């Protein structure tokens, strides 16, 4: 009986508990957990999908580069919600504890908790990657802000309009273009 078999056997339970834990960081976790339509519940749906994919990769020891897609699905959302950077990525770490709990509760697989080093190392790599992704999305957000402030401006500042020479008054108004 090896770890891979243990993961296969308990995958559903582990992922469910992980999803539940991650969604418990939201005030309305009940709804985010219950509604399974991804379009009616984008936070719950995307987090569930992302965690499912990520767990598969973690448990089979996939190349950490492959973590990026599911991590982006999760972290792009948490980057713009009211979390500190630590709060945004920390729930990913919970899967280590969940796996240990699940294996410990299974008499036949109890001994597997001693051979989880590779899996837990993968989780560490995923959490570190999540920090990078968090920053990537924060930077993207700032770029979106800059783009929006710029948009429309050039039309006014580069035009021949005489009111362009009037100081101040028009400048703040055009950004974002209503």
């Amino acid at each position, binding site marked *: 009986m090896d770890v891979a078999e243990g993961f296969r056997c308990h995958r559903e339970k582990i992922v469910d508990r992980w999803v539940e*834990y991650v969604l*418990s*960081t*939201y*005030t*309305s*976790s009940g709804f*985010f957990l219950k*509604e399974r*339509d991804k*379009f*009616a*519940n*984008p*936070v719950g*749906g*995307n987090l569930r999908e992302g965690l499912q994919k990520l767990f598969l990769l973690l448990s089979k020891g996939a190349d950490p580069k492959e973590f990026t897609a599911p991590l982006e699905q999760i972290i*792009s*959302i948490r980057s*713009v*919600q*009211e*979390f*500190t950077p*630590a*709060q945004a990525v*920390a*729930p990913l*770490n*919970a899967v*280590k*504890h*969940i796996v240990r709990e699940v294996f410990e509760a299974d008499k036949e697989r109890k001994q597997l908790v001693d051979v989880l080093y590779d899996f*837990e190392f993968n*989780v*560490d790599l995923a959490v570190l990657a999540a920090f990078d992704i968090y920053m990537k*999305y924060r930077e993207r*957000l700032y*770029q*979106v*802000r800059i*783009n*929006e402030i710029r*948009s*429309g401006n050039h*039309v*006014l500042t580069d*035009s*021949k*309009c*005489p*009111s362009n020479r009037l100081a101040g*008054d*028009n400048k*703040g*108004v*055009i950004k*974002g*273009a*209503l």
Partner: protein
Amino acid sequence: MSVTKLEQLSKSVVQGPSLATGAIPTRDWMDIPVKFKAGNYAYVAKKDKVEYLNSQSGLSFPNAREWSPEEDDWKLPEDWKEIILTGLKERLDKFRSLKIFMDCCVRCGACADKCHFFLGTGDPKNMPVLRAELLRSIYRNDFTLAGKLFGKMAGAREMTVGVLKEWFMYSYQCTECRRCSVFCPYGIDTAEVTMMIRELLHLVGIGINWILEPVSNSNRTGNHMGLQPHTFKDNVEFLVEDVESLTGVKPNISFNRKGAEILFITPSADVFAEPGLYTAMGYLLLFEAIGLDYTWSTYASEGGNFGLFTNNEAMKKLNAKMYAEAERLGVKYILGGECGHMWRVVHQYMETMNGPADFLEKPVSPITGTVFENAASSKMVHLSEFTADLIKHGKLKFDKSRNSHIKATFHDSCNPARAMGLIDEPRYILDHVVDWVEMPENTIREQTFCCGSGTGLNTDEIMELRMRSGLPRANAVKYVQEKHGVNMLSCVCAIDRATLTSLNDYWTPGVGVCGVTELVANAIVQEGETRGELEEGLRTMVF
């Protein structure tokens, strides 16, 4: 990293229940105060803008001052509470709908999970039912017997500064998109509750600059940008030059021309900022192709009406300007461009506020003879209705391959879709001009998700909030981007064109935003054209 016990992990990273996210609430919603911090509120209105508006005829915006939501003291008038309660009483007497909405909610929760703000934040106070409850609890306390007798047990609470702050926070976390009202079995229009809360806040000088400055500009020069007539004219003329250099066709335009058959009004952003510029170029090409007898106006140079986001007096005044100009020019009726909330004002409030517009005629298409019975009262026809009718009668010639660089989808803008039922016309147009696909069923048509930045929330200081409230829409766009290779999100609203651009830049880079008329003009074939291969349609750079 060591293995962490779940409880410890929760404790160390989640210090306690935070407002929007963070943990399960441990207190009743009435006991959780709002906390303002940079990024979770839009900048408040500048003192001079409020002073100016307050000095204008027909408008009232008192208590102009310098203040900040982050400070404890909001510098309210001494008798603020009396002002609010008297204001509420006046509105309950004046607007029967408000009285009904206050009374008839049974808290069934059908609306609760339909709000894009709730879906993106998980904050219970963004459930439409609870957002309305912020006002309803005060109504119960002061205007119902049960509330007076049983207080909190009957869901009532006293009006306090804390409640006022809560109103400010959450009435500006609602875009009045009305998706929730589609699902309400009683037909409660929660957007109108938000409108009333915002009105009441203005009575004591609480409002945001991104709304009041455009209102002030519209009142002064006729458009949100505060641009003067010659600037408006210059910019439309620049677009004419662009169209000519791209297609060889020089659109014939006129301004403030008395005796024109039709007055054309569109959001000013179409004339001044990308990507709306291309939609405006589309208008010019389309009207030229059919030889429409129309005029632009440099006075009614704005279709948008940010008055809708402040109070009914400002909305009325800005709306009246369009009709006054139509009367002055002696046109037969008004043709409206691709705007969102302009259509809500025209279809739902114009008749009551400024109607009847009996100095205008029932709209008839001069090209097809179609009578627009649906606009018999408002005397204002939506460009998509007008264009769909032209196509139906074979009056336009298209080469769809001119849009072959585009795989489109269509975003139903909240107001045209839900406030005027404009759902099939844009789709009919798209069928003829571009290859396009629908987004998932529960995110389109009447159930469309808002861009997340309507009602004057399209300001950059609340970008995170906009990104999370726009997530439900972006999530559907992402789906069609991945599944069908969609690279263009078409829509019929100027705020959408600006805000969905930012939304896509964050969530779905590579998906552009355009107006439906831009796609029409890309595909249009007309006499005298000398256009070459325009690889990006009207967006092709020509040197």
